[in-house]
């Protein structure tokens, strides 16, 4: 894997507002990379500094080994799919896609027409070239934006919340298509999104950003299973947080978890540096289970009382009160054949396993 984009100590100020704080980041060639975070975390600003649409206040942006300082957007080997798609309303679909070829005097008119048709067929819009662009649907506009950017064969394709304007069905369909397209063209994709599920589904690696900083940079599975801070854990998926007391550190960590008791866990279950004493133990709802009548387990059990039931169809989410914990435990159960939906107030047993715990400071 070769580094394609390198950011070193990138800072960005808007007046007094510190939008990007000392960003260090390497993005590899051919990677599907995501910048994930809540709105206002600086992810779009970071994307725009790579595109050259935003100057950095300090630090270095390198693409393909070249320092991009003073290189304006039109001269960078990056192309962007804008959040609004920015399809030029006064141009037809084909004219939109061919927009970036205007300065390519080495190409004949026929070459350009063929390239446009190829680009359109790549995004599933064969034969749409003559259409007026303002008559397109949201999904079609996005495809035109993709074709328009990819026709220039950039080293990096930048996508600024490209799916946020689409409805849920269309969004899921485009997620799959974007992954397929990225594998097909082999270009580095950098996606900005606030949707954690979208980032998990599509990316090779994800940088989670908060307040202008990268909170964690990891592959989706690590990010989900071993979040390195409470705010990453809160932002991605659901997690129960239990107060814990670290008793001994080492290859195995001895810890007393409120409500669950004393256990020892692997050192890698603590992604951030720990000290003896107070800590937090996180556990995902789907790694806990309710022991229904007639089921058996060799895992650990703890007594509880159903406090709240939220029925989702395929899943049921239970809040179960357990002695020694202030907040009830949130537990996700698949509605398998024969499993009843429990009622509030029913006494039950909760199945848990110390291997699913993550320890946070």
């Amino acid at each position, binding site marked *: 894997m070769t580094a394609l984009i390198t950011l070193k100590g990138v800072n960005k100020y808007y007046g007094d507002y510190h939008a990007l704080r000392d960003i260090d980041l390497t993005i590899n060639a051919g990677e599907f990379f995501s910048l994930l975070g809540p709105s206002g975390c600086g992810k779009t600003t970071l994307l725009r500094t790579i595109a050259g*649409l935003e100057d950095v206040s300090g630090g270095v942006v390198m693409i393909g080994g070249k320092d991009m300082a003073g290189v304006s*957007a*039109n001269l960078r080997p990056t192309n962007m799919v*804008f959040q*609004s798609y920015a399809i*030029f309303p006064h141009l037809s679909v084909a004219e939109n896609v061919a927009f*970036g070829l205007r300065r390519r005097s080495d190409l004949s008119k026929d070459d350009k027409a063929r390239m446009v048709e190829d680009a359109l067929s790549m995004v599933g819009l064969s034969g749409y070239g003559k259409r007026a662009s303002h008559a397109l649907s949201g999904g079609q506009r996005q495809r035109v934006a993709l074709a328009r950017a990819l026709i*220039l064969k950039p080293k990096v394709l930048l996508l600024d919340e490209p799916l946020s304007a689409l409805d849920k069905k269309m969004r899921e369909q485009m997620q799959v298509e974007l992954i397929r397209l990225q594998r097909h063209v082999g270009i580095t994709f950098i996606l900005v999104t606030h949707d954690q599920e979208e980032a998990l589904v599509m990316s090779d690696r994800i940088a989670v950003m908060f307040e202008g900083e990268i909170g964690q940079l990891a592959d989706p599975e690590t990010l989900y299973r071993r979040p390195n801070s409470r705010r990453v854990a809160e932002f991605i998926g659901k997690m129960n947080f239990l107060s814990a007391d670290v008793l001994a550190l080492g290859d195995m960590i001895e810890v007393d978890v409120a409500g669950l008791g004393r256990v020892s866990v692997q050192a890698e279950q603590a992604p951030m540096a720990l000290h003896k004493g107070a800590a937090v133990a996180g556990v995902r709802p789907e790694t806990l289970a309710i022991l229904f009548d007639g089921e058996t387990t060799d895992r650990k059990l703890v007594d509880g009382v159903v406090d709240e039931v939220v029925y989702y169809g395929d899943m049921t989410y239970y809040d179960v009160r357990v002695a020694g914990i202030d907040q009830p435990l949130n537990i996700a159960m698949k509605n398998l054949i024969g499993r009843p939906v429990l009622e509030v107030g029913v006494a039950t047993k909760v199945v848990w396993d110390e291997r699913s715990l993550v320890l946070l400071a």
Partner: protein
Amino acid sequence: MSLRVYAIAYLIFLYAPIALLPIFAFNDARIIAFPLSGFTTDWFAALMTNTSLHTAVKNSLFIAVMTAILSTLLGICAARAGAMYRFPVKAGIMGFIMLPLVLPEIIVAVSLLVVVVQIFDMGLSHWTIIAAHVLICTPFCIAILNGAFQNLDPSMEEAAMDLGESRFSAFRLVTLPLVMPGIISSMLIAFTISLDEFIIAFFLSGVSPTMPVYIWGLMRFPAQLPVVMALGTILVALSILLLTIAELLRRRGMARAGVKDKGGFL
């Protein structure tokens, strides 16, 4: 329902004076009053042979064309800056530029007269009128162009730059075609205002009067009034034509930018 009746009555009030114009322009009498006496086109014929009127029209056309171009250029700067950029004390600067909209014209006229004649001791010319007309037309141009520029997605130009165009050619290839209807409509409005403006032109015109100043002169001679009516008829017809074009262009611009029409010049 009663509101609609009122609205129609109000429109009649608005149009009453203009409706009279063609009636007297074709009336075969030197006195502008009822009863009418007969049909004639003499007054229009008289317009054709009046050389001092022709000079005045030429003066006014020159002034109006220059005013339209200059005030629209200034309007483009202001509307683009207002719609696309954040900068220090923006609201204050924009308010200041729009101020001529509420400034009494006589104040504009006398203050410029004082500066030009008394302080700089320069002569009055068409350019002094143009300078003042640009000042009062620019706010109107900004108001019209604001609509065009604010409807523009700022990422359009960024997309063009991202696709390899420089800042200037991005403006030329993307923004300019999209705001062109607004630009033409702004020029037509400024042209119309300048062509019709009297108070400032009266103070600032040099030896050769503009058309409204010439009409003002004619009004003192009752015998010339039917000719004024004929001239007015032509002017009103032209104004309506120009404004209809401006309005149609504005609507086409809205449609082209894919925006729903909310209507109106301002």
